[in-house]
């Protein structure tokens, strides 16, 4: 009998909605023109693009579809927001940028680039559930601050950020606010005007749209210097022949995201709760990273750490049982470094190593969740039996971080003792 296949990695990417895919199909081989062309093959495409633009503008309640710049993805959008805004405003506003400590690498590395090119950067820390304190942002702003960059939701641990409160502060101080909404878009309503952000980005591949397309909203007041030079596409703000089918698919995905928002959120939040309850009932020594399911957590993500075992092993055994998840453990990253998000919430190194990220989608079912709980419980037993740490914990050599017994040293101390170097 075939194993169940359960995709629990929707915070990485999602399948394309059937309706979005069907809408894209004619644009590959029939309506294949470039929208810059004056003939009918070009004109035919313009109409579809305009509609898609309108649907996406509606999804975030932008003043006008002209406030959107299409890019190739969430990363390019973040780069354009940060470097484009910094470039355009460094002279009039200053060379200081405020950013939270747990932004996605697209933001972090854009900011780092600027820091190598004459910008000063202040990183605002987060609390242990990964929340930014708006007052910290306020305190970080200086007269030279050009931009504050905070995400709406963290991609790893699912924390919803107080962007609206931060926007009040930035508005008061006359500083522009950019919100990376990639982990939020499609999974909670977004209203750029209500939020009070000047820049906001996301990519439809996170809510059943295609890959290869990103969106940057920028209010008319926020000037952005273009970073990809060439033709006058996107009103001269982003050159290059448009990825027409992807824009069309993005429009349909946005339309459905709006229409089905309540229903998707309700369903996925229900599954999230069931998954959380099930896991914590059946598996000992696991810790939730980020807020408990509820108003501070995005509805589709759980980030947990399983003590005494490592993340990649869990991921692989789950995968073997047909369950696709992610992990922020160092073994999973190409750089062998634990996710900087987990470091920023000061997660114990042992727990960071045992990290697993499960992100639900609209097509997951109650049966999926029950299967995951059951499978995960078995896998944890199997890996703990293999782990020297588990026995050493039982023997009192090392202690649990999650439920300390008062016996034994910490994992980190133990690891340092045997490797001769402090673990990082």
């Amino acid at each position, binding site marked *: 009998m075939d194993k169940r296949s359960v995709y629990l990695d929707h915070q990485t990417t999602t399948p394309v909605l059937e309706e979005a895919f069907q809408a894209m199909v004619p644009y590959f081989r029939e309506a294949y023109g470039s929208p810059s062309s004056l003939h009918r093959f070009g004109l035919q495409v313009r109409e579809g693009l305009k509609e898609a633009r309108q649907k996406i503008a509606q999804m975030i309640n932008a003043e006008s579809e002209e406030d959107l710049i299409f890019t190739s993805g969430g990363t390019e959008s973040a780069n354009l927001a940060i470097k484009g805004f910094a470039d355009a405003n460094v002279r009039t506003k200053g060379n200081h940028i405020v950013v939270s400590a747990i932004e996605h690498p697209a933001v972090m590395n854009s900011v780092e680039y600027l820091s190598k090119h004459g910008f000063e950067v202040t990183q605002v820390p987060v609390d242990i559930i990964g929340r930014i304190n708006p007052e910290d942002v306020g305190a970080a702003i200086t007269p030279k601050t050009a931009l504050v960059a905070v995400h709406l939701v963290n991609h790893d641990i699912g924390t919803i950020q107080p962007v609206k409160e931060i926007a009040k502060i930035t508005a008061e101080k006359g500083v522009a606010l950019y919100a990376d909404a990639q982990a939020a878009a499609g999974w909670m309503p977004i209203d750029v005007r209500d939020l009070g952000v000047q820049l906001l980005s996301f990519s439809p591949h996170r809510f059943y749209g295609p890959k290869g397309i990103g969106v940057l909203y920028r209010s008319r007041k926020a000037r952005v210097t273009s970073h990809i030079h060439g033709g006058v596409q996107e009103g001269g703000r982003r050159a290059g022949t448009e990825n027409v089918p992807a824009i069309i698919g993005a429009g349909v995905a946005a339309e459905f995201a709006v229409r089905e928002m309540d229903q998707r959120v309700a369903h996925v939040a229900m599954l999230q709760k069931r998954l959380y309850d099930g896991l914590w009932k059946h598996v000992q020594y696991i810790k939730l990273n980020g807020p408990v399911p509820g108003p501070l957590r995005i509805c589709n993500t759980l980030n947990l750490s399983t003590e005494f075992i490592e993340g990649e092993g869990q991921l692989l055994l789950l995968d073997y049982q047909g369950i696709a998840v992610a992990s922020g453990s160092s073994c999973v990253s190409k750089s062998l470094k634990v996710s900087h998000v987990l470091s920023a919430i000061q997660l114990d190194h042992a727990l960071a190593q045992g990290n697993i990220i499960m992100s639900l989608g609209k097509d997951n079912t109650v049966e999926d969740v029950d299967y995951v709980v059951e499978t995960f419980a078995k896998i944890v037993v199997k890996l703990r039996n293999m782990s020297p740490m588990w*026995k050493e914990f039982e023997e009192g050599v090392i202690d649990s971080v999650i439920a300390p017994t008062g016996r034994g040293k910490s994992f980190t101390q133990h*690891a340092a003792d045997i490797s001769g170097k402090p673990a990082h």
Partner: protein
Amino acid sequence: MKETKEYTLYNDTVMDHFLNPRNMGDVEQADGVGEVGAAACGDIMKISLKIRDGKIEDARFKTFGCGSAIASSSMATELIKGRTLEEAKNFSNQEVVDALGGLPPVKIHCSVLAEEALKAAIEDYEAKQPKVALATA
């Protein structure tokens, strides 16, 4: 494109040793035990040995680490059983890599960890057997 379920991160041999590890556990009343940690990624590996007549009669492992760390320790214990201490001291991680049919570059250090755990176990054994240690010195 094959079916989704046919894809695996590591090759078949590595996957087999990860899913069905050989020699998992602790040797009862071990003659030598080595536990080492990888500073690079935080993995921990423990190898315990039963040694009889200068030969490794049994070897078992426990590993806190990724798939290739588990597979490396499984393979290392398989390879080392039956070898003399002299042979075991020349054991190199490359043997593990080769026997596994290769590891991704970023995972080679897992096989190094297996070599280190084995050598730590032998050292532990020798430290407990001062005469033998001197004789082989």
